[in-house]
């Protein structure tokens, strides 16, 4: 038994594809047998280690979730919520617009009243404080005219 397993024979034996010749050689050659045994043991530990390593990195955690098809009740609820949301979206700007219009109308009315007051004051011939004097003056003029007229 001078000839040990070739590289290909060794690989095929490791892959579980050894021929009768290779199996006989392995049975008789302790050196090849030991090497194959050591390699098998190493690859077994390798596989276990990778699986353990994979578990440590989240292999056991399933993070996949299918979106469940909607049930009838859930579908109705979604539709109702959608309608409410649409109503809110539609009503809020209208309400806001109406409030702004009312505020603008009130402001316009206030402005109108103020302008009216200013116009009234400007249309007076004498200041408000002097109005009693004007009355007095206009009263004496009336008296003089009436007395002159009776003469």
């Amino acid at each position: 038994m001078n000839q040990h397993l070739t590289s290909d024979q060794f690989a095929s034996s490791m892959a579980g594809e050894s021929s009768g010749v290779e199996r006989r050689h392995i049975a008789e050659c302790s050196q090849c047998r030991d090497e194959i045994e050591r390699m098998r043991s190493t690859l077994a530990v390798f596989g276990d280690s990778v699986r353990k390593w994979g578990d440590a990195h989240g292999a056991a955690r399933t993070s996949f979730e299918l979106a469940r098809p909607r049930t009838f009740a859930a579908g109705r609820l979604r539709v109702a919520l959608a309608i409410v949301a649409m109503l809110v979206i539609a009503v809020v700007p209208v309400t806001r617009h109406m409030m702004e219009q009312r505020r603008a109308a009130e402001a316009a009315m206030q402005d109108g009243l103020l302008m009216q007051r200013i116009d009234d004051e400007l249309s007076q011939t004498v200041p408000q404080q002097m109005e009693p004097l004007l009355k007095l003056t206009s009263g004496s003029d009336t008296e003089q005219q009436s007395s002159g007229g009776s003469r």
Partner: protein
Amino acid sequence: MEPAATSQLMVAAVEAPALEAEQFESVVRQYWPRVFLFVLASLRDRDAAETVTQDCFLRAYRGLGGFRGEASLQTWLMQIAVNLVRDYARNRRLQFWRKTQAAKIDVGDVSDWMPDRDATPEEKALTKERVAAVWEVAGTLSPKQRTVFLLRFVEDMDLLEICGATGLKEGAVKVHLFRALKAVRERIGRAV
């Protein structure tokens, strides 16, 4: 989950009947760990593995109607995962990010996760060194060699199952596996 993936799921959910969706969730629970493990060991990037695994199950869900049961469900899922891993590796747009991720995220050496076994400290140290060597070599294999190697020694799939998952002929699977084993043997020889 990314928004695009979420929207795709919504579309898929609408297209598929409710019963299928419920059944598929149990499929996901059962097979997610194995698919994720293969993808993670292939890409060595947790975030990418998560995304690719998500995509794998999404595609499986959408293609559930086309599954004829000729292969086992696991082989069928692995076939999708193998294709996605290959596409991911080919996608040049992600090359830069892959390099960046590899530099930034240390997913660690699997030899740090060796199961406890009855062995002397010397034996444990030697085994750890060999496992680290195998992990190192697995990272340098060609994509096909690595895929076949991981399916065989991590997923414990036999040659015919590997053929089903990779779409390769049995002879081609053997060639890739033998080359991978030769590389591992050479490296372990140096490590010992």
